């Protein structure tokens, strides 16, 4: 299924999953509910799994992070912010806050993090206090770029370990956001946080709810002792369940992150973890596939290679996860995400309002994403921008009073159209191919998506034969089986993948010629009179 089930060398795009996306993954608890999906488990033929076992980006963005360039400057970002204000009906905003600190190193983690031994006491510690001050300053800087009617409808704290910060620090950041941005109505405002249950208890969760947090994502990974020791993340089952219970008391949206394919994991031991999580009644579960890439992610060198389960074992674990969750009444959202039918993400999939951004799947109508903190990614319709990843670089940019933007990419119309269809494939079961390109991008030729992407759609022939998708000139329908292969289908539309030879070289080498558009609009001077 998804990313590398094999430890062979994946293409550079996979970096995205490991170092960029996971930094902001969270809300990635989504539901790809299939309208015609039965709770009974689907049979996924092993041959099919084998065929589609390749390293493919997770498409939380398109173009993917490896396309980001250091040519992109804070001025580019300011200009993008300005044009986003100038659109006819500007989008709402969502805000991501990155907190890189962690108490200890989890060996599987590819996120941007800083291991900090020094206690962050009630008074904080110097490094952490400085970071919080910088975050506050960055929030001020960013807020000045947006017009008064840009409502902020989603706030998310990710890490690292956001609950490394103490209650006072978190409250100060949330208050600063509230005073600088225009918050959406309380009933619509989501304030989410990723929780490491080792450094918080039930009381702590209640305190976070007092600050305003109403969505919790709790890192569990695996309850088995030997697995926890092998990845250096030992967390007591009872204590973790207490944190989950406390979160469920104060919020109707609790997500649990699990990881399949960790060292020493077996389908039997993981079945225990799944059972506990299901019994805890969490509304969303994300079961990520572990990508073992020790060459790229230094922390993973600390994992004993021989402890990694075999491909067959890993598939079995994935399969157990799927059947257990489907039998327990969860719906499959897409990729490795599951949610209960009453959960807002499951509803969003059904209502076709599901979205995907750097935080994973989200219910929010399309927003412009503002990322603050080291490594945080910001997103406009026509641009992505990423902050400095190194804490020292981030701190010095802020000290100089600058937007701490290190790299980014600007999208042209072709990119935006591809981003659109990739997003649809990642989030919907039925994709309208009769939509016109000019509904999606500005001043482009008016052609249907079916025509614009005819070569790409043809390249999906194998997927049609395999029963993953049905394609007509009107629509593309993803089957329940196909919902497990969304990335594979989406990747056929990625013009930056060198393997996609069906995409015209002019797009692959990038930058379309605007003068070839709009010839039909031309009138003669004599007709003007």
């Amino acid at each position, binding site marked *: 299924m998804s990313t590398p089930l094999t430890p062979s060398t994946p293409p550079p795009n996979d970096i995205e999953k490991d170092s960029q996306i996971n930094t902001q993954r969270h809300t990635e608890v989504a539901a790809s509910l299939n309208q015609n999906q039965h709770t009974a488990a689907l049979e996924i033929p092993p041959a099919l799994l084998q065929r589609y076992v390749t390293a493919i980006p997770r498409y939380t963005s398109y173009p993917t992070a490896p396309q980001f360039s250091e040519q992109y400057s804070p001025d580019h970002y300011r200009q993008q912010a300005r*044009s986003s*204000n*100038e*659109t*006819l*009906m*500007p989008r709402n905003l969502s805000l991501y806050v990155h907190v890189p600190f962690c108490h200890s190193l989890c060996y599987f983690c590819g996120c941007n993090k800083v291991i900090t031994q020094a206690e962050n006491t009630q008074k904080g510690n110097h490094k952490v206090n400085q970071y919080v001050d910088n975050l506050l300053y960055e929030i001020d800087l960013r807020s000045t770029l947006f*017009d*008064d*009617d840009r409502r902020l409808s989603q706030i998310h704290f990710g890490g690292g370990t956001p609950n490394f910060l103490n209650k006072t620090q978190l409250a100060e950041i949330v208050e600063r956001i509230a005073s600088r941005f225009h918050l959406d109505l309380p009933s619509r405002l989501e304030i989410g946080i990723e929780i490491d249950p080792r450094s918080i208890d039930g009381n702590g969760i209640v305190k976070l709810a007092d600050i305003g947090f109403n969505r919790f994502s709790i890192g569990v990974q695996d309850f088995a002792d030997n697995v926890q020791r092998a990845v250096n993340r030992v967390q007591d089952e009872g204590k973790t369940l207490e944190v989950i219970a406390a979160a469920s008391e104060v919020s109707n949206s609790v997500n649990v992150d699990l990881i399949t394919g960790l060292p020493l994991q077996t389908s039997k031991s993981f079945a225990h973890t799944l059972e506990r999580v299901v019994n805890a009644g969490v509304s969303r579960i994300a079961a990520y596939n572990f990508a073992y890439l020790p060459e790229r992610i230094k922390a993973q060198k600390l994992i004993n290679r021989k402890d990694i389960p075999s491909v067959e074992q890993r598939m079995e674990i994935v399969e157990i996860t799927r059947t257990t969750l489907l039998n327990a009444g969860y719906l499959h959202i897409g990729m490795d995400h599951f949610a209960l039918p009453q959960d807002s993400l499951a509803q969003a999939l059904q209502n076709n309002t599901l979205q995907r951004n750097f935080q994973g799947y989200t219910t929010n109508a399309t927003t412009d994403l503002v990322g603050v903190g080291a490594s945080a990614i910001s997103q406009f319709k026509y641009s992505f921008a990423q902050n400095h990843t190194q804490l020292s670089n981030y701190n010095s940019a802020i000290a100089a009073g600058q937007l701490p933007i290190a790299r980014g990419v600007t999208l042209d119309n072709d990119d935006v159209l591809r981003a659109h269809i990739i997003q649809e494939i990642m989030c919907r079961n039925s994709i309208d191919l009769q939509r*016109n390109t*000019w*509904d*999606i*991008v*500005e*001043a482009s030729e008016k052609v249907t998506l079916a025509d614009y992407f005819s070569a790409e759609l043809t390249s999906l022939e194998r997927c049609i034969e395999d029963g993953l998708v049905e394609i007509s000139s009107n629509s593309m329908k993803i089957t329940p089986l196909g919902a497990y292969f969304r990335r594979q289908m989406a990747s056929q539309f990625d013009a930056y993948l060198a393997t996609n030879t069906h995409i015209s070289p002019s797009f692959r080498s990038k930058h379309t010629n*605007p*003068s070839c*558009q*709009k010839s039909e*609009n*031309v*009138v*003669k*001077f*004599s*007709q*003007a*009179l």
Partner: protein
Amino acid sequence: MPLGIAKTDVELLENLIQSSETLQVNDAIFQQGERFSKVYAVKSGTFKSSRIDGQGNEHVTAFHLPGELIGLDGIYPDTYSSTTIALDTAVLCSMDYDELTQLCTSIPALQRQLLRLLSRDIYESYKANAENADHTAAQKLASFLNNLSTRYELRGYSALSFNLAMSRQDIASHLGLTPETVSRLLKRFKHDGLIDIENRHIELKDAGGLNALIACANG
């Protein structure tokens, strides 16, 4: 070419036209105060004319669509009264004004057509002044959309489905509203089923409803 001009006349006219020119977003045709010499016709794309007032504030005076002429307001002051820039990639052709007037003496039909166009501009501007005086914000925006629709239709484009190349700031400045009001009203029109708006693409779902709104005092 309207009004039955003979073929040779058309040839004369086309000789006047200097070859067309492609402009990119924000490229200016002429600056406010520049000496008047040519009139321009939009072949494709959209243009925006604006004036800077004594306080340095920009006021959007007009938008120009494919098939329309730009610069006629420069005849009287002998300078261009606004700065005109392209809002998207656009194609334009130009005609020397002195040569155009000369040609008018030999082609009466052309002269009549030119006078008609000038008169239309005067008429539209009087009408707009009278209406805007007591129009609500919603009425101003509805009549703006209505006006674009009429102009597109006149040029053989769809009257009910078109792209708006201008920003909400531009529309707001043109109508004397705030940008936030423009967006709020567009949302309301969409909610009320008068229009559909996706990105920059506008669909007039209920042109009758829009007209009723313009006519109604409590729009």
